[in-house]
């Protein structure tokens, strides 16, 4: 019976149902973070004060870190598959 249930699961692709939706959400988030990163780079070229520049640099570091973390989670999800 268990074998039958498992074969039905794998035929219908039910095991990866949760992972797939997480991957999808993560990809959307990474895309948004990447476009934010580009936006910060563009702002850095036209920045006025030093204070503003430092703030943008800090934000850039945060975004880079989050992209790195997101990619790591995504690789793990693909590795599981």
């Amino acid at each position, binding site marked *: 019976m268990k074998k039958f249930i498992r074969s039905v699961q794998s035929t219908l692709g039910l095991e990866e149902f949760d992972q797939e939706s*997480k991957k999808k959400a993560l990809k959307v988030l990474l895309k948004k973070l990447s476009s934010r990163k580009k936006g910060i780079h563009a702002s850095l070229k036209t920045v006025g004060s030093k204070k503003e520049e*430092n703030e943008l640099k800090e934000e850039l*570091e945060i975004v880079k870190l989050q992209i790195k973390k997101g990619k790591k989670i995504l690789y793990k999800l693909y590795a599981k598959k």
Partner: protein
Amino acid sequence: MLKKIFLPTIFAILAYGFWISPDFKTISAGVAIFLFGMISLEEGFRSFSGGALERVLQKSTDKLYKSISFGFVTTAIMQSSSLVSVLTISFIGAGLIGLAQGIGIILGANIGTTTGAWLMAGFGLKVKISAYAMPMLVFGMILIFQKSKGIKGFGYILTGLGFLFLGIHYMKEGFEAFKSTVDLASFAVDGFRGLMLFIGIGIVATVIMQSSHATIVLILAALAAGQITYENALALTIGANIGTTITAIIGSLSSNIDGKRLAAAHFIFNVITAVIAVLIIRQIEYGVDMISQSLGIANDNHTLKLAVFDSLFKVMGVIIFIPFVDKLVYFLESRLKESHTKKMPSSDHAKYLNESSLEIPATALAAIKRETIHLYDNAFEIIAHGLNLKRSNIVSDRDLDEVVAEPYTQSAVDIDTFYNRKIKGIYGEIIDFSTKAQSQMSPGYIEVLYHLKLANRDIVEAVKDTKHLQKNLDKYTKSDNEHIRKQYNMIRRDLAELLRTIDRAGRSEEEDTVMVLLSKAKLHTEKYDIIANGTLDNLIRHNLVTIEMATSLMNDSTYAYGISKNLIAMAEIIFTERSSEADSLSEEMAITDEDIDVILEKGQ
């Protein structure tokens, strides 16, 4: 008293019926299986009521026509207006939608129930429906044993449909066999007396079965077997439409005032529609004949004609009611008012927590989340006053140095009084509600609830820390020593900036914006911690402050640091999506203390 004799009477009637007629037993078993199918179907759909519930509701119910469409589609899919009514009441109770939107959903749900009659009359009675039931039950049961919540829910839906089909099959068989022994049609009553009698029977049958859908399926099965006349079937359908409001009324008893208003609206709508239908029954029958003719339905096909009648009479009711929805909302709001007898008028109380939301874990969580935001809103006000700042200035775009320079009041606000009035009661209600909600939750939901409880604790801790901070803050911001004054104003400025950032994160709908804003707040907290960054050492070393001032500053910066940490932790819980498919994603991607150290090192 009535309750005590109701159930034994039903049992006695059924037992007597089973004893004298095996066919009645088959019909009753069919109804029981059908109702069990509805329970299973409802269970399945409840699994899907979580996730992006709020967003879906807000997008699908912001206009009346959208609310009606939402009610129609959800009822047509779930085949249960009772479930839609109870869900709508719990949505209103949790503050996810307003009364006008709720009435729209109920109007749509009324039309949605007609799809059941069409399915039964057009498909259920014509094919051997039990042939579809068996595979559905087998596949459904396999899916129920799966771990994934979504797949399990789908399994319940499939099993529910299987039982519905099986129930219909037994009802059909029962009535067919019944025909050979007893002719129920001989009990038919003509004229106005018959109309009123069968409306009454329809009401009673629906109240007992708690499902107008089951009543209509039963009517169709009896009609198809020729056991009731077409005229009496029409009256039973009208009765079923009144009886169904009882489910909503029972559901609303534990709801807040808006839930009760919605149940009243449902009752008023269905009763008025029924009265109109009785008054113009001949005209409606004529209209049914015309529509049936144009659809190619034979004149003697009473089951399909009943489906036409059901649709015509319900659509007519909705069309008549649409122009009066606003007036109905006004009428209900002015007639049904919240009782304030138990509550202290000076104290703030929970807005979104009521028993009706407890039924669905996702709605209960949504209600707790909203209440937590309500609690934070009050805490924001207290913290702002504790810092001697104006709340409106904090959330504005004004320069924060200017905001800090403009005190809210000359004398310190009593935080204890504010805490007792605006925090303590709501916090207690949230904890009490969470404990009740937890008993009906799966481990996944309990995990989310646990985080929400943590967020509440963070808010309360932040308010308590503000109280400790306030005493010296008030004293030293008026001090002659410019160094200590500057440090305390820095604390005020940093906390104001944090409150502003959290406010922006709360208003943002973009997940990446919320993540970045809160990460920046975390970084800011560590960067400007005056103990960690050496400011305090510097002040002491250069004798710029007294020992007493230094001690106070050290303690108070610890309180300020605690407030920041608690508020950020709270914001990460309530302003990031925890119940979506991106479950725990924000948590996994949030920057840690080590990450902050790396960024700070790079900046130096």
